[in-house]
């Protein structure tokens, strides 16, 4: 009884949220050429974080050329402005600064973090990368070959890193969201120097640039500097690619990626989910927290705590602009693969049947609210959030109204969300990396099986990539 009282009081204490989740003050400026600046001052430490986004990403990779956007992101810092690749790296490292660039499905992003006394250099380097990259043939070939070798290394030592590539390809089929962002061994080998030069001309420009800067600087001075640096950048040659929502592919179905002799099986189970602007995002986050988003989740409790089948099981709702995915992700010893998958499906079924009661809703809400402030604690993380909001056409209300939305969720609205966002147990896509010799017979019960070797140079089973 005392225990129950203690728990109730804890929930109550946690529920007394007077302070809401809010985005710190920031200023948004749209320049004449379409570039959007997002600026916020922060003076607790002498650092400045910058996040620059070029809309497009690997969803804009041409058919057969997966990995192009990501490769371009790697190459833009291998020589830019007046600097060679070595000089560029030296310039950043010399002052203790960090710059990186990569591409995901929908944008190429550049992240930079420098001491505030070197912020002019940071702006210069990022501007050079974006507007004056050298894109030399030599550097392109080195990066391409290195990317291929890194995929091969992952296949050998850490295949779980390749799961997103296999899973997205199998869930979305030939739709752009199925493009492996980093490319595959085959698609990368097809890429030519002309390809990245063309992509750069077609898809880099001020009309699709977002620059978010947060940190130890004076806002007006920073605004003037960025305006002068980026305000004159001409638009890209081609229009931004417009994505159509993906066509539904029949489920259930299974992709078995054969890694002979594997002692572990990695598996993702799920299907298409919802987009960034899904209206019941709060309900989805509450449901997902309880289902597989924290240590005491239903999945962890079943697969780790109660059965010891795995070290980690979670569920992730990944949200893109047109749609997203919802996947259960885990791994287990080869011999317990079927047991673990069956258990995971069982937990999903329970989620659909039972939903969340008020106690679980309160617990999940406390957890989300309690864990949110640290995610915006650094200049870089705030810059990242601001750029994300802008990229998806959202304003600060996306965050500011979140706390209220969490508080407004009920068991009914959550059940509706679960029905909408989570695949049912007979509508699942299974992606496994493991020893096919041991697994192939048993996984057939989950659905029609497509088998490929991990050595195969593509992530999609079909020819076109």
């Amino acid at each position: 009884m005392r225990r129950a009282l203690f728990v109730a009081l804890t929930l109550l204490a946690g529920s007394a949220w007077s302070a809401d989740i809010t985005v710190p003050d920031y200023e948004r400026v749209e320049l004449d050429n379409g570039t959007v600046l997002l600026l916020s001052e922060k003076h607790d430490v002498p650092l400045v974080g910058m996040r620059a986004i070029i809309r497009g990403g690997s969803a804009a990779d041409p058919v057969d050329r997966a990995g192009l956007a990501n490769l371009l992101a790697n190459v833009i810092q291998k020589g830019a402005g007046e600097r060679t690749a070595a000089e560029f790296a030296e310039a950043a490292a010399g002052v203790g600064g960090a710059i990186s660039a990569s591409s995901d499905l929908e944008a190429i992003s550049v992240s930079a973090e420098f001491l505030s006394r070197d912020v002019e250099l940071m702006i210069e380097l990022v501007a050079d990368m974006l507007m004056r990259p050298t894109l030399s043939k030599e550097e392109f070939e080195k990066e391409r070959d290195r990317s291929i070798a890194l995929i091969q290394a992952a296949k050998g030592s850490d295949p779980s890193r390749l799961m997103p590539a296999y899973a997205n390809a199998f869930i979305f089929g030939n739709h752009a969201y199925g493009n492996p962002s980093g490319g595959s061994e085959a698609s990368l080998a097809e890429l030519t120097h002309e390809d990245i030069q063309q992509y750069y001309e077609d898809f880099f420009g001020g009309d699709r640039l977002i620059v978010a800067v947060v940190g130890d600087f004076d806002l007006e001075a920073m605004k003037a500097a960025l305006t002068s640096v980026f305000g004159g950048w001409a638009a890209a040659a081609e229009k931004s690619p417009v994505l159509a929502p993906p066509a539904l592919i029949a489920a259930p179905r299974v992709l078995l990626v054969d890694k002979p002799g594997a002692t572990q099986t990695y598996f993702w189970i799920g299907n298409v989910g919802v987009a960034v602007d899904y209206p019941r995002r709060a309900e989805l986050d509450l449901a997902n927290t309880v289902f597989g988003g924290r240590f005491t989740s239903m999945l962890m409790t079943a697969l780790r705590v109660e059965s010891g089948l795995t070290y980690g099981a979670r569920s992730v709702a990944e949200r893109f602009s047109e749609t997203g995915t919802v996947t259960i992700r885990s791994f287990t010893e080869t011999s317990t693969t079927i047991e673990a998958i069956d258990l995971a499906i069982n937990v999903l079924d329970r989620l659909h049947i039972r939903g969340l009661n008020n106690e679980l809703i309160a617990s999940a809400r406390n957890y989300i609210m309690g864990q949110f402030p640290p995610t915006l604690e650094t200049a870089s993380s705030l810059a990242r959030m601001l750029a994300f909001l802008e990229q998806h056409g959202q304003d600060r209300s996306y965050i500011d109204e979140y706390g209220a939305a969490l508080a407004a969720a009920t068991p009914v609205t959550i059940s509706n969300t679960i029905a909408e966002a989570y695949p049912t147990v007979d509508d699942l896509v299974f992606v496994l990396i493991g020893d096919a010799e041991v697994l192939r017979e048993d996984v057939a019960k989950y659905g029609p099986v497509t088998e490929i070797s991990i050595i195969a140079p593509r992530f999609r089973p079909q020819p076109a990539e």
Partner: protein
Amino acid sequence: MSLFSELRRRNVFKVALLYAVASWLLVWLVNHMIDGVGLSAWVGDYALLLIVIGFPVALIFAWVYEITPSGIKKGIDVDQTQSIVYKTGQKLNAAVAVLAVLGVAAVIGEQLLPEFVRPVPVPIEEIRLKPVFDFSAKAEVPREITSFQLPNGLKIIVWPDHDIPNVALYYFVRAGSRNEYPGITGIAHFFEHMMFNGTKSRGQGEFDRTMEAAGGANNARTSNDTTVYMDWFPRSALETVFELEGDRLANLAIDPDVVETERGAVYSERRLRVDNDNDGRLFEQMMATAYVAHPYQSPVIGWPSDIKNWTQQDLEAFYKTYYAPNNITLVFAGDVTPEEIYLLADQYLSPIPRQHPPPEITTVEPEQQGERRFVIETDAQSPLLHVAFHAAATDDPETLQMDLLLAILAEGNSSRLHRALVEEAPVALSVGGMQTDGFDPGLVYFYMTLPPDGDLGDAEARLLLELQRVVENGVSAAELQKARNLRIASFWRGLQTINGKASSLGSFEVFTGDYENLFMIPERLTAIEPGDLQAVAAQVFRTENMTVGTLRPPAEGAAE
């Protein structure tokens, strides 16, 4: 006389006109100063207010007073036959005329000349984006940090930070694989698991459920030297956390059934991190080979046979000795005050009884007498090369110097090793270097992943050549400055979050004996010279001090 003519006689109209023209000019000037030179806008409003207030005052003044040869006097006091209002009137006319001309000139000039507006933004080189932060200030120990020790020996450090309504708690138990011996290896790490598995009053899983329901999250990690427990929670959960932590530190249940299940989880972790991970596997063998005497030789997760054979007695003894308040340091960073932490600590942690201090580790790894090497042949698409050298302990002064040297050698794309081994000659896919942290002397450790057709012998030779270059020729002042800047940046990054604050403060307290040493880092960095790095390189990078481990697919006759 009519009022009108009297007004005229006393020059009230002329004063009014003069006042109006002068006011116009003043307002024009102020506006241009606001736009052009950045004068604060409130000056304009203030001026306007004064002008408006001043107008009736000026008129009244003009009515009442007149200028006489002997100064300004009240009109009624002036002999009207001596009055010079007429002359004053002429002077006023002249003044109005002058100001009017100025006004006209200003208006015409404004049209003819280029607009006097704020300057157009200039190229980036000419903009000085001064940081608001004062870099010249020494990193001083923040005054708000407080520390105290309970009578049972528990040490607590509190760093208040009210930026977000959250708290980060790190506590360091001085128990690691260093405190183990053959038969009980892996036991310290095992307690990292057991601490979440129930107490005498709480069932398995209740700790996590309670904490997460209150908005908190947690984790733990074990190293060779310490087991660190981390809680991240909103302020509102503070007392809940104290209750939970006090409970598991005093009343952990070591239930035999739970122990068996958890052994399985540890096996699963071993499989994930070591058996199925080529880097993890090679690392475990490297430690076991580089160290022949000191307990750092055994893996933190433990050898499989030891994991299988811990007894109930082993477990209970270990918990009693090591999870004692005299062996633990707590660090709080976040939205708390030292006073409230003290009160809660007194309530929930003071009752935990002190224990005898754990036995000291007296084994000193004897100096390595000759190069050691081994080869693991296994299924591997990418060959791996690890090279390690015996070096200093965390608290030794050479460690910071080696830290800088490692930044020059291995940090980032501009580092010497990356350039030589990845960029200039595609010998490796990636190369890294680090040094192990610890109470006792650790290792400087280089690791490389090669492409599938990579030549391990060549990679090793090139790595050693780069190390030898430092020994012979040292490093340049520019490289040293870069390394300093990288460390300074990392110093500040570590203090960006309450998590980083708790972690950094705690590590320094535990490994150097005083958390204040954290804030000495920037100063110490400035004092290091290129010669220091060359000296430490000569001391450490010797073949007889070296252990080399490679992992590759089995050789099949033809060159692989």
